[in-house]
């Protein structure tokens, strides 16, 4: 795996982005992350969390500032290389699963990168094992439940063995059992994880580091314990204490 000069796998410096001229969604974001970290990006609706994620994977390229993934600047030339290192789990699993069966979808990424069939097979087996879906490998995507779809979507990313996994609202629409299952699975993954969510309890259970975004800037960056317990900080930026803490 390639890293930056200081061993960082993700480097963002003075990042600016706007959809329309004069209306910046992100204005001066700075962030570095290292291998194996788990980072929760939190913030109210419409403050640029999803935009930041899309910039990281190169879905938007017209940004200003420095944005490097695995030592490579995010630009058109490096896109293919960057996307080998980074996996993005969409909020809506239906957008992620577009082939007929779970197996075909999980094999899609590795096959596209030209891996030999035996290696594709190994990765598919391993990814499905990690999300406990080996029994459902030949199941039609259409017939999966919401929780199973989410796990299958994660498996499609795990099969690419990325260094960075980005997840947009992964706990949305999951029942408690599937949510608990997802937390367990995420905690077993060793890659750098970046999770955006409004579900602060979920962030607390899966991330050690939390970044609070508001008005296109990073307001706070620190340990999950420190930030998620700071009622005043959270409330001043449109959030509330996690339910598990507010009940105490």
């Amino acid at each position, binding site marked *: 795996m390639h890293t930056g000069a200081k061993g960082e796998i993700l480097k963002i410096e003075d990042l600016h982005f706007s959809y329309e001229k004069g209306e910046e969604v992100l204005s001066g974001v700075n962030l570095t992350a290292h291998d194996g970290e788990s980072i929760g990006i939190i913030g109210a609706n419409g403050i640029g969390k999803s935009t930041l994620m899309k910039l990281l994977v190169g*879905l938007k390229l017209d940004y200003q500032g420095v944005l490097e993934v695995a030592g490579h600047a995010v630009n058109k030339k490096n896109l293919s290389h960057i*996307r080998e290192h980074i996996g*993005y789990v*969409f909020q809506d699993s*239906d*957008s992620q699963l*577009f082939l007929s069966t779970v197996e*075909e979808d999980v094999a*899609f990424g590795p096959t596209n990168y030209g891996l030999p069939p035996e290696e594709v097979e190994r990765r598919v087996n391993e990814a499905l094992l990690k999300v406990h879906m080996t029994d459902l490998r030949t199941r*039609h995507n259409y017939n999966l439940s919401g929780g199973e779809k989410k796990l299958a979507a994660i498996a499609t990313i795990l099969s690419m063995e990325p260094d960075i996994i980005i997840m947009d609202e992964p706990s949305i629409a999951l029942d408690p059992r599937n949510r608990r299952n997802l937390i367990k699975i995420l905690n077993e993954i060793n890659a750098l994880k970046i999770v955006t969510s409004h579900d602060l309890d979920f962030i607390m259970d899966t991330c050690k580091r939390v970044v609070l975004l508001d008005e296109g800037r990073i307001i706070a960056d620190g340990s999950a314990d420190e930030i998620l317990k700071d009622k005043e900080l959270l409330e001043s930026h449109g959030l509330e204490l996690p339910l598990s803490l507010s009940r105490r």
Partner: protein
Amino acid sequence: MKQIEDNIRELNKLQNLQQRSHWMNKLHPLGKLLVCVIYIFVVASFDKYAMDKLLVMAVFPAFCFIVGDLSLKDGLYRMRLILPLVLFVGVFNPIFDRKELFSIAAFGNQIPVTGGVISMLTLMLKGLFSVLSAYILIATTSIEEICYALRCLHVPKIIVIVIMLIYRYFGLMGAEADRITTAYMLRAPKQKGIHYSAWGSLVGQWLLRSMDRASAVYESMTLRGFNGDFRVKRKIVSARDFLYPFIWIVLFILLRHFY
């Protein structure tokens, strides 16, 4: 609303059929595609009055429906949108072609059978056989495999990708249409169908939302290394993959020339 749901379910059933572990599903897609295309060409090549000879060509769909465990009833039902069109093709022939070919005795009378009637029935049979053979292909072969076979035949990449994406887009548009109409019907329980005043905005919403979904799917594909070419797992070719098309193609040629 129910009709959209039914159509989505039908599409899903067809995909389940393609995923069966039957030996016909496991055959190399190129062989199946060639058999289907050559069958259609051979069927189409029969003379317009050669209905008796054409009937022999029923051997292929009959074999596939019986041996392939496919339901003829389901096949005809799923092809119901195309069948009336192919059956309609020769409907005017009896008017224009009145030449008497032979007559049949019925209830003590001789009923003349004109060339128009025979050519109409021949055209209908040709259409029916062609549609059934296409159904056999899509019921035993997934869209990815058909596209793989097309690539094996060196059909341009762009055409194959467009076919595949259109197929995916159908399901997606169906799902969006279902959501929109469900949301509408739940808030207009006393209405039968959708009021014309809402058609414009519903269709607009439908297109915008399905385009959003389609671009999300495309983003998901590009993020997993999609660069404009679908790579399907290369099939290992067995003796059966050669024998199946070989036997059928030889049989078609023999039936066409010697029967």
